[in-house]
């Protein structure tokens, strides 16, 4: 089997032996960690993200300033000792508001990712196992959703449903549930396609055949044998989905169709700040930078995880 490129031709034999050597020395997770560690930016990002998560969780205890204490004598102030990130037009402390907002933004990101991945894995798994008409129909729906313009659709659903949901769950809870459901509901397609593709290839593998020959039920086959082996790429997509969901939430809030102004999130603080850009740029720069750093960190971690868990894919 002379390879198509000289490098692979000559590397074939040694690569196999060294891979075999490593497999003996490391478990798959250790091997993944070893590869992840090689991605410097991912490591730095993981650390940065940990700091941000710790800050928004522990922040209120370290910086116990109320988020809605109005002080007109201190409005639109730049960063100072008493207000490290300055104040907004009502003299509210921005650090406290951004800590609170970070909790919501991160929570929305994670929750929306869970919804998207759950729906995606479910649909992808059904399509991958069923094949035939069911598969074709599900993939048609997936492609259809992929070709829908996401933001207009998000906005439309929120526009049509926000009043009734608010009536049932209250302002903050209603907005949270609606936004999570809508973002999750419009982001499941990549996961579904990925899981289906993984299923199609894994279910033909020998170990699955073996399990089937041993009389494993379909459900057991999926849960015990196929799904765990399909998870690597799904974890990568899930990570990147968190970043996308955080951007989506900030975008909605920024456009005035996400969380209302009295519930500070990074996006809604930025929306209020945009009209004061000339006199109080710090007001917009802090939340914007937080969104950017968080999203960048998550994307880098996703890239590192891709190297670690899914080495075959290039993009």
């Amino acid at each position, binding site marked *: 089997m*002379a390879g198509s490129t*000289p490098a692979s031709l*000559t*590397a074939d034999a040694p*690569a196999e032996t060294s891979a075999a050597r490593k497999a003996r020395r490391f478990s798959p997770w250790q091997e993944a960690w070893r590869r992840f560690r090689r991605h410097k930016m991912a490591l730095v990002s993981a650390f940065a993200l940990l700091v941000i998560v710790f800050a928004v969780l522990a922040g209120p205890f370290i910086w116990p300033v109320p988020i809605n204490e109005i002080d007109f004598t201190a409005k639109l102030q730049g960063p100072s000792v008493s207000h490290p990130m300055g104040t907004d037009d009502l003299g509210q402390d921005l650090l406290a508001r951004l800590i609170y907002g970070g909790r919501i933004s991160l929570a929305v990101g994670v929750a929306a990712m869970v919804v998207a991945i759950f729906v995606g894995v479910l649909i992808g798994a059904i399509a991958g196992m069923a094949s035939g008409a069911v598969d074709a129909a599900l993939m048609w729906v997936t492609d259809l959703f992929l070709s829908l313009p996401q933001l207009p659709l998000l906005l439309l659903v929120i526009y049509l449903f926000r009043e009734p949901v608010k009536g049932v769950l209250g302002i903050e809870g209603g907005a949270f549930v609606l936004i999570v459901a809508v973002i999750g509901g419009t982001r499941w397609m990549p996961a579904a396609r990925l899981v289906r593709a993984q299923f199609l290839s894994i279910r033909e593998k020998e170990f699955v055949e073996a399990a089937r020959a041993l009389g494993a039920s379909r459900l057991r086959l999926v849960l015990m044998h196929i799904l765990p082996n399909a998870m690597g790429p799904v974890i990568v997509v899930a990570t990147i989905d968190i970043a996308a969901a955080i951007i989506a939430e900030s975008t909605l809030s920024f456009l005035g169709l996400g969380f209302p102004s009295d519930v500070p999130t990074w996006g809604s603080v930025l929306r209020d700040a945009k009209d004061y850009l000339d006199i109080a740029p710090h007001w917009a720069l802090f939340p914007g930078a937080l969104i950017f750093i968080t999203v960048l960190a998550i994307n880098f971690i996703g890239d590192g995880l891709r190297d670690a868990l899914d080495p075959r894919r290039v993009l």
Partner: protein
Amino acid sequence: MAENLLDIRGLKTWFKTDDGVVRAVDGVDLHLDRGETLGVVGESGCGKTVTARSVLKLIDMPPGRFEAGEILWKGRNLIPLPAEEMNKIRAREIAIIFQEPMTSLNPVYTVGYQIAEVLRQHENLSRKQAVEGAVEMLRLVNIPNPGKRVHDYPHQFSGGMRQRVMIAMALSCKPQLLIADEPTTALDVTIQAQILELMQEMKDRLGMSIMLITHAMGVVAETCQRVVVMYAGKVVEEAPVEALFANPRHPYTQGLIRSIPRVDRAAAKERLEAIPGTVPSLLTPPPGCRFAARCKYAMDVCVTAMPPLKEVGPGHRVACVL
């Protein structure tokens, strides 16, 4: 002996990988005369393809690197040659065809375009003249209806026909050397014979030399005048084809010859022999003879030092202490 057409001396082509340096070609000496067909044989990963591609400097650098040695083409060393000079030699003086006719042609251009591209580059022809030249080449390699086929895309040809197109492309500037890197491995047996026959015919008509890379000893016996046997990046035996088959000296060559299936032996219920073991790692090659681990005659000296090539007959050299 007059000046050789091609003379490779002490060539080392190494590759840097994540796991270390792969010494794919590690000190190869071989030469090729005008009008000669030289067979280069050995199993997968022995460095024969890298040797072939090194001649045309088709090695990706990095990760590849010429560590040492010379490639003398008509007395001129190709290794330090700048890219523009090298491009004047490629296709015009030395051409190459590959194993996979399926993937060696660009799917998005017509075969006519791809042949004409060579002619336009080297012969300064107009677009129209070049296409006419392409038709002529397709006719030469016995593709039926060349005037029409010239406008077809590679996927519209069968595997054997594609290899004919590759040959037409390679020979369009009438090179003095054709390097054929496993040209028949991917083809059906009947097609293989046709392609070999075509190469032979072209060689006679154009008076060129052929360097035939293969792992099939049968192909070597039929087409070559001289053979170089490679193992783990080194030449282990070199001989005229009759001498090699009549009197193989290196245990590896002996193993290769014994592993050819033969009808007469099959009738005698003789077992087809395989060489035990696999090619050693080229990352950390053993200091001694690289075949020692698989050799049934291995002695203590074999694992300490690599034996040099020594003359054992006219044009017959072998790297073995035996």
